[in-house]
């Protein structure tokens, strides 16, 4: 039913536009009524300012698909990219001049989701980083893409600032394990395992001490959470843990984080208008701009109208926000990478099979549908209570109940969205699996 409704709105809103476009022989009229932001004609105006940076922009490819962009930072073939998008061992960088090179990931800074790659090439065009204090709010910026035409353009929305997790909802698009962690010796301690969760299915138990996650040692709960925030549902994550003095290794197939009412709503609105990066932060520092980049357009340079490279795009974080790591931060990290300060565990990610993923999605959908059903039943009951409060003339109770009714209607709306989304995901998984 939701799907039908959505299609109705599509028709209603878009038809007048198409009518305009069809009628508008006069292209100028169309220029006014249609958004320019994706138009080649508009983006071409930025071509000159971005031309140098574009020469240092590469397409990062895994299994023949562009996963994100990269920025050449040294002529000897050092290239930075967004770490969490590189999920294979075989990586190829396609340069602006058309040449392709196999790349090796030589360092990952998990804090900023940056990966340094190395290709066997010489004399490459590379960028010079500018201090982002020149990127004042309202300055126009553009995003170098794989071709000559910039990928997107916009303005600086917020000047460079420290990034803090509390500023955003938890990154719900990361993989979900279902454990409560505390601190233990020598690693984080599992305090509780959620029933039926991926962790429970893998056999993890309360009291287990986690030693390694994704091949990296973890000493604190925070480190484990950070490591998991780079995962996606369906990833198979290897854990080394300690139980009764015995070390053991298990694999957990991560699931989806259960959606929470109010959070779900923010998530839904933010996802309106295009997909977002899986990993959205926190980073050390961010420069926020409103260029509508796609997740796979992260990793490349952000350029101002003077042609200065003021940052490296690191996340499409919401409907209104894209983040770049500020130029001065990247400039400071590059020597650390070259000096080998950042180590790499394997970049290849093991995934559950399509059939398993579909099965997971089916269960997820069933759960959501049940929850929706239960919420609807609660609403019905509450409405009856509200009615009797009205009949009894108990105004205090009536106010209280009507507030509750509103809340639950809100929840139902959010849940319906989730169900619809889950249905779509399942059907696309079923298609890809068959």
């Amino acid at each position, binding site marked *: 039913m939701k799907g*039908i*409704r959505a299609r*109705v*709105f*599509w028709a*209603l*809103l878009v038809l*007048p*536009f198409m*009518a*305009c476009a069809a009628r*508008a022989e006069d292209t*100028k009229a169309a*220029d*006014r*009524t*249609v*958004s*320019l*932001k994706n138009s080649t*004609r*508009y983006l071409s*105006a*930025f071509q000159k*300012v971005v031309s140098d940076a574009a020469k240092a922009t590469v397409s990062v490819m895994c299994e023949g698909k562009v996963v994100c962009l990269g920025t050449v930072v040294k002529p000897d073939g050092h290239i930075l990219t967004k770490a969490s998008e590189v999920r294979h061992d075989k990586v190829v960088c396609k340069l602006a001049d058309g040449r392709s090179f196999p790349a090796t990931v030589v360092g990952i800074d998990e804090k900023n989701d940056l990966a340094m790659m190395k290709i066997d090439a010489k004399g490459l065009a590379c960028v010079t980083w500018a201090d982002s204090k020149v990127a*004042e*709010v*309202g*300055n*126009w910026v553009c995003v170098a893409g794989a071709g000559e035409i910039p990928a997107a353009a*916009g*303005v*600086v*929305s*917020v*000047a460079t*600032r420290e990034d*803090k997790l509390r*500023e*955003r909802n938890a990154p719900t698009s990361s993989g979900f394990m279902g454990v409560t962690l505390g601190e233990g010796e020598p690693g984080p301690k599992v305090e509780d395992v959620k029933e039926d969760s991926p962790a429970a299915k893998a056999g993890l138990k309360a009291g287990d001490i986690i030693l390694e996650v994704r091949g990296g040692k973890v000493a604190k709960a925070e480190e484990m959470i950070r490591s998991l925030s780079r995962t996606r549902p369906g990833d198979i994550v290897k854990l080394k843990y300690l139980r009764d003095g015995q070390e053991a290794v298990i694999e957990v197939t991560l699931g989806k984080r259960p959606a929470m009412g*109010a959070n779900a*709503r923010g998530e839904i*609105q933010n996802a*309106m*208008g*295009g997909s977002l990066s899986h990993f959205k932060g926190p980073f050390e520092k961010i420069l*926020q701009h*409103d260029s*509508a980049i796609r997740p796979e357009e992260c990793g490349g340079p952000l350029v101002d*109208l003077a042609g200065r490279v003021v940052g490296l795009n690191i996340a499409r974080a*919401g*409907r*209104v926000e894209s983040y770049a790591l500020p130029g001065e931060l990247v400039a400071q990290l590059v020597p650390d990478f070259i000096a080998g300060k950042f180590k790499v565990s394997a970049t290849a990610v093991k995934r559950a099979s399509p059939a398993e993923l579909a099965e997971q999605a089916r269960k997820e959908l069933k759960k959501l549908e049940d929850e929706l059903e239960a919420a609807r039943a609660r609403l019905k009951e509450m409405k009856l209570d509200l009615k009797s409060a009205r009949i009894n003339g108990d105004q205090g109770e009536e106010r209280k109940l*009507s507030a509750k*009714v*509103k*809340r639950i209607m809100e929840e*139902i*709306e959010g849940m319906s*969205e989730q169900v619809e989304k889950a249905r779509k995901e399942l059907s696309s998984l079923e298609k890809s699996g068959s």
Partner: protein
Amino acid sequence: MTQIVKPVSLSPLAILALSLWIGAHAGAQAPSSQVASDRNPPVNDRIVPESVDDLKSLQEQVKKVVAKCRPTTVGIFVGNSAGSGVMIKKEDGFYVLTAGHVSGNADRDCQLVLPGGKRLKGKTLGANNGIDSGLIKVVDKGAFEHAESGKSKDLKVGQWVVSIGHPGGFQQGRTPVVRVGRILKVDRSTVQTDCTLVGGDSGGPLFDLEGRVIGIHSRIGLSLNVNFHVPVDTYDETWDRLVKSEVWGGTGGFFDLFRSGQAGYLGVQVAQTSGGLEIAEVVAESPAAKAGLKPKDMLLKIDGKALSSPDELPRLLSRKKPGDEIKLEYSREGKAKEITVKLAKRPS
């Protein structure tokens, strides 16, 4: 692709308004072919900037607007919701223009947060839920950075505009968030731009390139190009009612769900299409839903009176009381049908 429109505050109430309040802006206005205006700086004529110089002159203008207007943008906390607003000055003190679904009911205490983090007390005044305008009075005394109002009737499609607000609600350490875009559509009840908005932006200001408030953020659609703002003229036109804490209006729309009203309640959203008045949305468990009405049904007549525009539906219903029965003629897939619907009281 799909299109839905959502209000952009984080109000827990407003989620009900997820569905679209499309009737009022379904009638597209013909795009104006003349954008040049004496009052606008020439930079406004750069409908499509074609050179770096064009872009630079736009940039200069945008930066002026940011410097002048960002300090006038406020964050609003009222009840459990977070929204945005803009400070303005009148003879008798300071007010904050916001969205009706942010300020909600009249005479509620609220908190206003200036960009630097300073908090002020405010009191909600009136709201026109038909158009989603709302007003707040600044209770604390003092002098505050305030914005100048423009005229939304002078707006032209294609004109560049600056949007400021607090997406996700006010956040310490983050200045109000600036976005730039153009007006894609404008009529008396709605301004549409490609300045992206999201939850928490609701009530925030839209400025022209001279830094005058021309709209207030209201709701969004799925596409990044579908962002709706309340035209600023409506605040002036209804100022007396807003100041008197009057809460009124609605087109049978979702914003009305939260107000008790005496009019009969059907529970549909309608939109004007070339074929007539089409149901865009049926509210779950409403009289319309119980009577079996569905999206895409075309409404023809109520009690024998033909419905020719979306405004006519609320007008006819406003003459009815909850419990009244209406005879409703509609067509589904080309077949005409007739039903009797017992109107309900609007859910509070």
